[in-house]
């Protein structure tokens, strides 16, 4: 509960922050909301030698609609994201993170850069096919969600780079569902499923499903998506798709859940998330048949 010794700087600009990170080398870490890093430091599971605090850098926390997409500054707090209902599934998922204290401090950029597959936002970003901007001394570059998460708590963000912005397609008219399973409301997900559905005349025009804590990185459920795409949306088609949600996954067992139990849970949660997504999608009212559960 007492962290190891470290140095601390609070740069005035993004450029200074990048420079400090570069100079700090491999053991330098960015600090924003602190709700992933500081607990690890207190348990001495992480021992960075330098903390570069970007928590008060101006201009990095805005949430803006930009034509067909949303731009969310890396320093936007979970509580701010959760409070922006137009963000749909992102707002929903952010509102389930831990507890109010954590949501008031933790940031979207920090959560994504931390790359914990049990966190809520990485799989949502993946399901939405979003992207992030990371900036280093050689300028900004774009990293897609699919490229971002490389392994357990390992991302494509290089040493000396800062995640500055998250961009998500607006998905107007799509329905969404986010179903998270945990023992206590403040816990990380044992398993969670995010689903977004685009419907036309009751048929699934497109669907994307993200899986949380089902592997070392956030995952999609391609078999389940394929099973539903182009099919009429009804209880049977959803059940058939959800039955394939665990296909190809090899989740790690932990104290609360065996791998088999997680694979079972992900099928149950996928069905719930798809049902909710269908209930909230436009283009579903004229559904030809088959009542949704």
């Amino acid at each position, binding site marked *: 509960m*007492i962290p190891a010794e470290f140095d601390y700087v609070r740069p005035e600009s993004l450029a200074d922050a990048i420079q400090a990170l570069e100079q700090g080398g491999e053991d330098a870490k960015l600090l924003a909301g602190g709700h992933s890093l500081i607990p690890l430091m207190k348990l*001495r599971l992480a021992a960075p030698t330098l903390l570069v605090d970007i928590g008060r850098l101006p201009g990095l926390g805005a949430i803006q609609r930009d034509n067909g997409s949303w731009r969310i500054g890396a320093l936007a707090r979970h509580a701010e994201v959760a409070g922006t209902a137009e963000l749909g599934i992102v707002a929903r998922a952010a509102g389930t993170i831990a507890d109010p204290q954590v949501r008031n401090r933790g940031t979207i950029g920090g959560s994504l850069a931390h790359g914990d597959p049990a966190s809520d936002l990485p799989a949502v970003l993946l399901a939405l096919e979003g992207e992030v901007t990371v900036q280093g001394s050689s300028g900004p570059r774009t990293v897609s969600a699919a490229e971002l998460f490389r392994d357990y708590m390992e991302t494509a963000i290089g040493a000396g780079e800062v995640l500055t912005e998250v961009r998500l397609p607006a998905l107007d008219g799509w329905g969404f569902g986010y179903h998270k*399973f945990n023992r206590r409301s403040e*816990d990380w997900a044992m398993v969670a499923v995010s689903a977004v559905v685009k419907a036309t005349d009751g048929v699934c025009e497109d669907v994307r499903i993200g899986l949380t804590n089902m592997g070392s990185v956030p995952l999609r459920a391609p078999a389940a998506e394929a099973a539903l795409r182009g099919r009429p949306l009804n209880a049977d088609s959803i059940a058939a798709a959800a039955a394939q949600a665990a296909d190809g996954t090899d989740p790690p067992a932990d*104290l*609360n*859940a065996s791998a088999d*139990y997680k694979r079972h849970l992900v099928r149950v949660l996928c069905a719930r998330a798809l049902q909710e997504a269908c209930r909230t999608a436009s283009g579903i009212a004229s559904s030809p048949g088959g009542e949704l559960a």
Partner: protein
Amino acid sequence: MSVHAETPHVGRALRRKEDPRLITGRARYIDDIVLPGTLWAAIVRSPEAHARIVSIDGSAALARDGIHAVYTGEDMADLGGPLPMAWAPPGVEVNNPEHWPLARGTVNHVGDAVAVVLGEDRYAVVDAAEDVLVEYDPLPAVVDPEAALAGAPFVHESLGTNKVHEWSLPGGDLEAGFAEAEVTLERRIVNHRIAGAPIEPRGVLADYRAGALTLYTSTQVPHFVRLFVAILLGLSEERVRVIAPEVGGGFGAKLQVYGEEILAGWASRRTGRPVKWIETRTENMAVTHQGRDQISQVKIGAKRDGTVTAYHVRILADFGAYNMLLTPLIPSLGAFVMGGCYKIPAVRTDIVGVFTNKCPTDAIRGAGRPEATHMIELMMDQLAAELDIDRLELRRRNFIAPEDFPAAVATGVVYDSGNYAGTLDKLLEHVDLDAFRREQEELRTRGVHRGIGFSTYTEICGLAPSRITGPAGVGVGAGLWESALVRVHNTGAVTVYTGTSPHGQGLETAFAQIVADKLGVDPSVVEVVHGDTATGPEGRGTYGSRSLATGGEAIAKATDKVVAKAKQIVAHELEAAPEDIEVAGGKFSVRGSPDKGMTLTDVAGVAYIGAVPEGMEPGLEETTFHDPENFVFPFGAHACVVDVEADTGKVKVVRYVAVDDCGNPVNPLLIDGQVHGGIAFGIGQALYERIHYDEDGQLVTGTFVDYALPTAAELPSFETDRTVTPSPSNSMGVKGVGEAGTIAASAAVTNAVIDALRPLGVGFINMPLSPMRVWHAIEEAKS
């Protein structure tokens, strides 16, 4: 000074005197106490569950800036003895291996203390502790208590066994009881290991100077700590002062004499500097004693009409690596109420204690009685299902009747008072069972599995009458009396010194109410002082729901003595007979002449400044040591409603109703607070909390991430009510209530889950009722 003429304060829901300082951050906990020149201590702990210590090299740590000393068990060779096991069940042999503040030769559980680093600041010592190089030669670890009992490997090789002791409490003719039974049922009931998890971890600040030691420690038992610190450090007892300042929760986990308390005192003497150690949460989860951890074979026999004829419980109790202050006694506390609130002619408990390479167990809220209630209340439901008799009807047929009190039960104790049907009736005024069954049916058609569970409990508390637990009795070999000193000051303000050591329950308020009524003053001018061995008489501390029934009664008796003296003074002043003086309307006055009278301030003026009657000593204070006549036996009826998600196994408590009877209520607000906390504790164990070690003896649940204390988000709003059946065991008719909620709750929750799952084919399940365990049970029932 304000004088109060209102209705009695006792019985009213006065707000807590303690709260202003607590909620404004002005309370003083151990970590708030700063002494000049203090050295911080960090403890090097074993990462191994079981190992021989080959070598300890502190040189790198000592070489760091600000590090003053590194000490190991060898340096502490001057200790007067190992850590104490104070009481064991009488008449049996107890294997009691040596247990030292710093390990000598071997470590026996993860977190066992190996060395201490002392230095100038807290960060420096924690960093330096990582530089202490300890070479371990790992030994095989034994984690499962049943495997431990079966044979090698042994936690303590020299014992040649892992068995600690065997102890039985027979009662009645068990053989005849089972012979008479037409049905017998047997279940294996597991009561898993939990933590006390107080929000304030432990902490010690030791200040040895000029031959005397002042030890600040976060404890429930300052006087016990003083006694053993004095013995182990070879100090005369009057040279040791122990202070328990504000204590942020104990739950039994601070009813202990810990190695760190001895170590801090020793290190302060050795260095000539104050020494401070504040436990981290990680340390708290690993080394502060834990509780429960029993596996029991439970057998019940009954006639077809539901009359229970015999009850036999065989407990295997996992004590962890060592016996601590009361370890072998804990399961025995449950044995006295093993038959619950039922008239069972034959009840027998057989206990076997066993060592494993885990943190030691000892008293945790309820200490043996939650386990006992859990077993009998689960078995009553199992029996009802077997006999196809309604669960509550079966209970009613076996309740000890109100007219049978005081009731001598098979286990040898005498239940003081009770009206079990009364609390159950009142519970059913809150819970409409017919409506519930309709709702349950309707929900099932929608796939929601709702269940209701009951727990009609009694427990034994108010520790402890020497007549029963003293050397001549059946219990622990010592009576646990309590002391009180009531001092009226010159101005009529009152200070009460209690030997109990409250740590959050609100006893300063309850005690002030009792004293205020007797002396005719406002509770606001009655200060209650506790937790300092230098201020009041010898005391015994806070545990076993004893503070009110035993400690409060001592205060009542001491106050009565003050009142008697005050009446003599008043009688003398008003020229009346002492027996004609009464306390009413804030005055001592002559019966029938309420206008003429003296306030306590007037009386104190005479006692300290004026002329007391001839032959009377001046002053106005009295001391009492109260040895209770009997225990007290609170009781009640709880109902829990749960929803179980069949496709995930998740259990949600949707309603919890508790009707408790703790005798005459002193402060209903405090009672509700205790009951609420107790229920949360019991629900926590049933559904969420579990201390878990892997097969190598590594602690898996070392933080609050993995050790799932429930939060407000997981719990419903509790509904509470009371009946009042005064206790004849004390003058106030009160019973303890600090543990009752916990003692009742786990059985109510578990029975509710089983009720929900019966249609799915699940007729029995053990705690913890985690989603995966419940889901597995449902899946197994399907196949």
